């Protein structure tokens, strides 16, 4: 039993950031900054549970979609003219533990097997499991650098390619990357920060009544999970429908010329490095417009998403404190 998404109290920024990524996975993931025990992983799990089932090719170890892209195994089957059956599957949250090895992330080509049997044998890793699912990394700032590198590479390319001793293998790896970190425990390097699409902040709830609500809902869920789920069913279904609809409508959302201009104005005034900020900002705004059933992006949409699209890109060098830039961002926002 998974706690219902709609029953998570407050934390609107995190919820919105996650939803936008579901609507448009090319936004490139969410980094959740916040303290321990603030329902970060609960929310991610809840969202995966909320979403409708996805169609996958039956028996595929990589959750290939019937519409492609396909993994090497499915491609081979297709070439042989085999009929690919389709089945429905619930979305999962694949968790990546700290201290995970490279092999467990990308999977392994079994060279020993290849030599003895003359066949290619691929043992899927976590990226295979994460294809078309959520990949969740708790305390991403404590993860070894080379693993983060690997993940971000795959996330950007949408494909996982393994090469070992001249034997190669690839499969699609399109996942929604969700990282969480507590800045008190050390920062993530600016290069890595930049590669997360959005960066949302989870605030500690200090309001007594809200906290009470959190506690009560949790205990209610613990004692009678079925009753609790029933209570939230309508709200859950509405939201699920809304997200599915937004996903469908996304490509039809128009972007007026002035919005392009506003985005570029904003990012150039902030002296951002690279263009990822611009792109993410626009995509997020578009997804937000789609979520609100609009057919074109408005300034209001930009305003709503600008903070978590750019916040983590303001700091460019290690040992630099981005306070000035953050101030500037707020100033620019007030003019917008």
């Amino acid at each position, binding site marked *: 039993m998974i706690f219902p998404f709609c029953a998570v109290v407050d934390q609107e920024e995190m919820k919105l950031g996650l939803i936008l990524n579901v609507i448009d996975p090319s936004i490139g993931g969410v980094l959740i900054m916040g303290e321990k*025990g603030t*329902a970060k992983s609960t929310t991610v799990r809840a969202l995966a549970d909320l979403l409708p089932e996805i169609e996958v090719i039956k028996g595929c170890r990589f959750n290939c979609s019937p519409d492609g892209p396909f993994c090497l195994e499915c491609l081979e089957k297709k070439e042989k003219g085999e009929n690919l059956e389709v089945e429905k599957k619930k979305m999962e949250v694949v968790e990546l533990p*700290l201290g995970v090895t490279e092999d467990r992330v990308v999977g392994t080509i079994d060279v*020993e097997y290849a*030599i003895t049997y003359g066949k290619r044998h691929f043992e899927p890793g976590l990226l295979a499991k994460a294809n078309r699912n959520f990949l969740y990394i708790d305390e991403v700032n404590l993860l070894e650098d080379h693993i983060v590198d690997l993940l971000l590479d795959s996330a950007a390319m949408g494909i996982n390619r393994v090469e070992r001793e001249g034997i190669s293998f690839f499969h699609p790896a399109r996942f929604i990357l969700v990282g969480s970190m507590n800045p008190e*425990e050390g920062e993530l390097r600016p290069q890595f920060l930049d590669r997360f699409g959005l960066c949302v902040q989870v605030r500690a709830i200090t309001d007594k009544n809200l906290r009470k609500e959190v506690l009560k809902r949790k*205990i209610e869920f613990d004692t009678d999970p079925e009753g609790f789920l029933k209570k939230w069913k309508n709200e859950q279904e509405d939201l699920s429908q809304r997200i599915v609809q937004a996903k469908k409508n996304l490509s039809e959302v128009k972007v007026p010329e002035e919005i392009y201009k506003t985005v570029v104005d904003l990012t150039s005034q902030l002296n951002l490095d690279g263009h990822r900020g611009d792109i993410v900002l626009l995509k997020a705004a578009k997804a937000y417009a789609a979520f609100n059933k609009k057919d074109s992006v408005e300034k209001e949409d930009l305003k709503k998403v600008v903070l978590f699209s750019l916040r983590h890109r303001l700091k460019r060098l290690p040992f630099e404190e981005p306070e000035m830039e953050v101030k500037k961002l707020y100033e620019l926002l007030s003019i917008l």
Partner: protein
Amino acid sequence: MNFYQSFEDIFPEVLGNITPKLAIFLNLIEPRCGGVLIIGKKGTGKSLMLNCFKKILKISNLPFVEIPIGVTEETLIGGINIEKTIEKGSRVFEEGILDRAKEGFVLIDDINLLPDEYLSLIFEKAENFNLVATLNPEEGVLSPHFLDRFGMCAVTEDLKDPSNKQKLLKLYENNYQFEDSFLEKYESAIRKIESLKVLKEKVRVEEFIWDKISETVLKEFVFSHRAEIFLFYASLAYAAFKGEFSLKENHVDEVSHLVLLHRKREIEKQKVSEEKQKEEKKEDKEDRQDLKPSGERKEHKKENFSQKEKDRSESSEESSQIEMSFPCSSKEEIFGVGEVFKVKRMIFEKDKTIRSTTGRRTKSKTRLKGGRFLRSVIFSKDKDIDLFGTIRSAAPFQVLRGRKNKLIIYKEDFRYKEKERKISHVVSFVVDGSGSMGVQKRMEAVKGAILSLLMDCYQKRDKVSMIMFRKNQAEVVLPPTSSSDLAYKKLKDLPTGGKTPLSLGLLEAYKLIKKSHLKHPDTRIILIVLSDGKANQAIKSGEDPILEVKRICSEIGKLSYVDSVVIDCELKNNFLKMDLAKELAKWLSGKYFLLEDLKAENLVSLIDQIKTEHLESLERF
């Protein structure tokens, strides 16, 4: 039966220690309390308590597993059993310890000795089981996000009451068999737990209790929602334990310390005091803008501390004036950060350990897939096949084996790769903040040097930690972290002034090194001491401070996994030049650099140094 007496009966082997007993008991009544962490110094009965807990589980047939400290990843989460695979000819998977724990209890003794990676593996699955662990704070602590996962935390203490101590002596005088002793008492305790489990379901919860719980948690500046959830269940179990049918406010109060102890945060308190300091800063706007050699935007702050602080430093100065043998200013100042430069490369020798970490500083043999191929070997634990080596060793026998078209390879042909790859270190800075470092703004240059070294560590992916010693104390300003950022923030605010307890600083470093070695036996540690070596304060009063330094240095020098570097911060044009830091480097059997020579461009001097050393060694012949 009286409240305390009932606890004597629960774990008869352990005397006193009511709170840990209560925590374990509540956790048994209501496993949703979220597990127990038992904290205590050595010999206070932590492991004993865990054993008693195990005994209860055994007698009542509850599922549990124990995780030993030397556990490997495969045994923890499962993997391929190689022996069985070879025997059967098909892959045989074996489930890990954690899989066996399904819905039961997981016991870990000395949890702080497990590497963080394993802890994260364990906590990832923590929803499926209830964790009970012990921790000895003398050997390192857990990071806050791991602590937060424990529902309750209780401290074991030495017995204070002499009559209890005598009782303990009598109890342990005859080495009785643990397994069979007190069986009756255990059985009655288990019966009690069973009845309380039933009772617990009947406890009524009034509306005001929710408010009470939220208030209690907020009062301690705890923001994790886990606190409230666990507090609720703990109170519920406690109410049942007290035999009451409704949850009352005093129940919450009486168990709140169990849930909140490990979640209270020092930081919040610090923030409050920092804000106060800021206000004071505003009051005396004496910030001078000096010309900086590098022309950077760094500012030099001269700060007047609060009157209290001043008084304290003055009084401590007075009391120890007689011992003073080196010049030191009594003023307390915070210097800005001086010039930042590219640090000269320091090379440390390779050792023989095979590691699975990465980084960018020193080369080491590696277990990871990447890395530079060194040689082909017949035996390897890591099963990373060297294809060419394997074919090469199979080639001569092909005719003999009757090859037709496919290469025939036997098991004995397999060759494996030995590789090397760069690793990172834990770099431990020991910084002298005594008054002598404040002379002619020496501290500015030192801070600049540390920042330069931090940059270097950041690029080489080292973990850093920082120890500051001055006045009468040495303090771990920053426990090992991979965030050089954090180190920089701490560095900026380091004050200077007071005497030089060098030996205390080194002792603190020694402890820190030992701790991190216990936790990560593979990691190499670099100790960087920034000081002028003018120790003038001993740990024991009356001791010769220099002698003390020498003793601790030789202890550190014995540790094979530590490389030491001494950076001499003395002003060499000063007439009081004493070159004590050079001695320090010798005692540590470490490298020695002058602060000025750290820069990468300073190649000439290095070459000169090597030349003279070379000449000296020639002369000896």
